[in-house]
């Protein structure tokens, strides 16, 4: 391409750039459609980019030059630096003692400055996974309506909370599921936790605190895997028939089960606290 043609081309591209920019302003004041805004400003920049690259390649002289690299290591200079560093302090007695003291003072000062960061944490000790569930506490749905046992069908899945508790608390939400009672294989000490085959488990995965929002219920029992709760984040899978035992995925603890009772009005109430700490695991949590 001749320089003259390149100049004309760059001129045209610069005009197109201006046109694109003006179009962007026009679109902004008329409707401000996101696609048109992106298209106009994007094309304006693209024209400008083409103009700059063509100018850089075809108009200005293209020169290849050579130069020496800097020498980086210069031993004599290093020696001189060491001399400058060490000479003035040669005469000092108890150099090591002073250095140690200065280091200690520095660490103490820095430590003191860091201490106010402790205030980031809550004033009181927070106990992780502390549960609002008590025996007799009513299960309510997200709109605070009590949950009736007869509303829970076999194979269905409901989210419930303790009545008058903070729904955002990791220990609050439970999933209520129902299976055929004769399928249940709960541990012996949990007999009576699942009236009519209705069970409640913590909704917060013990692996990474995601909400367990998948209930896998076999459509055709003979060739389907059994009913299980599945977390959609890392697919930890918990066996609802066996009290929330982990059967697949990375979770290391079973899903805590909440004992259930049905009161005289047919409402679901808690029969006590969870079988374990709800929420993700930490150093020292009971398995």
């Amino acid at each position: 391409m001749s320089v003259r043609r390149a100049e004309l081309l760059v001129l045209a591209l610069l005009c197109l750039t201006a046109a694109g920019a003006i179009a962007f302003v026009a679109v902004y004041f008329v409707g401000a459609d996101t696609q048109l805004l992106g298209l106009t400003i994007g094309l304006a920049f693209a024209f400008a980019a083409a103009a700059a690259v063509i100018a850089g390649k075809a108009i200005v002289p293209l020169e290849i030059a050579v130069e020496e690299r800097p020498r980086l290591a210069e031993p004599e200079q290093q020696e001189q630096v060491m001399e400058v560093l060490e000479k003035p302090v040669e005469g000092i007695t108890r150099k090591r003692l002073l250095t140690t003291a200065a280091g200690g003072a520095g660490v103490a000062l820095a430590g003191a400055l860091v201490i106010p960061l402790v205030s980031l944490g809550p004033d009181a000790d927070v106990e992780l996974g502390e549960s609002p569930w008590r025996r007799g506490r009513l299960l309510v749905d997200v709109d605070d309506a009590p949950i009736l046992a007869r509303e829970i069908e076999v194979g269905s899945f409901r989210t419930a909370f303790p009545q008058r508790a903070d729904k955002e608390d990791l220990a609050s939400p439970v999933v209520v599921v129902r299976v055929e009672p004769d399928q249940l294989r709960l541990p012996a000490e949990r007999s009576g936790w699942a009236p009519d085959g209705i069970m409640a488990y913590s909704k917060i995965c013990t692996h990474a605190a995601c909400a367990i929002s998948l209930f896998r219920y076999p459509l055709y029992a003979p060739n389907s895997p059994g009913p299980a709760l599945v977390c959609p984040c890392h697919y930890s899978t918990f066996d609802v028939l066996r009290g929330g035992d982990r059967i697949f995925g990375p979770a290391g603890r079973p899903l805590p089960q909440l004992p259930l009772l049905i009161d005289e009005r047919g409402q679901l109430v808690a029969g006590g606290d969870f079988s374990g700490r709800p929420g993700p695991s930490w150093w020292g949590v009971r398995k």
Partner: protein
Amino acid sequence: MIRATVRWLDERLGSSSFLKKTLRYLFPDHWSFLLGEVVLYSFVVLLGTGIYLTFFFEPSYADVVYQGGYAPLRGAHMTDAYRSTLQISFDTKGGLLIRQTHHWAANVFSVAIVLHMLRIFFTGAFRKPRDINVFVGVTLLALALVEGFAGYSLPDDLLSGMGLAIAYSVLVSVPPVGAWVGVWLWGGEFPGGNVFESRLYIAHVFIFPILIAILISLHLTIVARQKHSQFRGPGRTERNVVGVPLWPGYALRAFGLLLAVTAALFLLGGLVQINPVWLWGPYHPYLSTNGAQPDWYMGWLLGALRLMPPLEIHVAGYTILPNPFIGGVLFPGLVFTLLYAWPALERRFTGDHARHDLLDRPRDAPVRSGLLAALFTFVAVLFIAGSADQVAVHFQISYEAQLWIFRAAALVLPVLAFYGTRSVCRELAAREAHPLRGWTGQVVQRTPAGGFERAERGPDYSTIRRDSE
């Protein structure tokens, strides 16, 4: 005008010799050297679009009732953070364009960092004296990941909340102090309150951008001090730099690349939807969605958490080492340690302590290339495993079967990648298939009498000065 400015500055700063050196700074030409520039230009776009977004975004978990332009959510309770994100997307002219451009820029920023890093490692550019810049660069990658994650956690939509829940769980899993650190950082148990959102915000718009800007400046200062590395070629030695001076040709082309990156990001931001937060809805700890995928640069960690077998250490019924620690802390910690230590490890095992300013092609160091390919393959397998749930939905391949396949692949493929890459490199090096390596030809001169004779020396590329026609 320009003369007056140069004189004005020189009389005050004595800047002319510095300016002259800067304008004559030489850039060796190779397409792969542009990857680092793409990082820089994406960062410029991130700053510009990010500042604009701060004018509208409200970093607050305060409960509000949505009354804005997106009808399906009208009347819903949500946090002010989520409401203001919807307002930017629907009720602010140009807001969605800037928001999506910002998000795309974050993705391109991190892609370019990773590609640039692969270039550095596969060409041996990490060797002395540039190992010092590896420390800066790898730290930049880590900061970019945290900064990006903080960014998409801010709007408090369902996906950002799920991501934060996982981040909190990974933090809490660190033995033995994790629970304490998690509660400390969140100001209470997850999901924390307003105080956490404002901390996340200041980290995203102030602390991390400033750290990144400082490290980018340091990175470039070191590059300029050491001067660019270059591939082998005619006239190029360990002691010189052969390249295009900054002014005017390279400056125009680099400026062109800045404009091109900006153009691409605006076109993506305007035409290709990204993170439509209004579809996910507001976050509550008791909600989640199936098939959730984070931004791409978190995919390797998601895959690691998913692939990890249910290993935990329990003593007397108490958990000592929770599972998320392995995939979420140990694994990325090892990868980053390896990246930091790579220059020193290579010196240790090859005994090569010399300074290197000429780059290798990957085939020039078959073992290094093989090891890098193995490391990259391992991370890539985990990255792909992070999308196994999507594969299960779209291709009807059982998730559980995939998990076992990926676990096997994570162990087997890196070994294959090592041997495969090493033998390809050896084969290529043996054949010397590359036409541009070194000067092996002969120069023939025409004599005044009309005959031809072989010239004494090869062409002298050091003085080439080529004006366009």
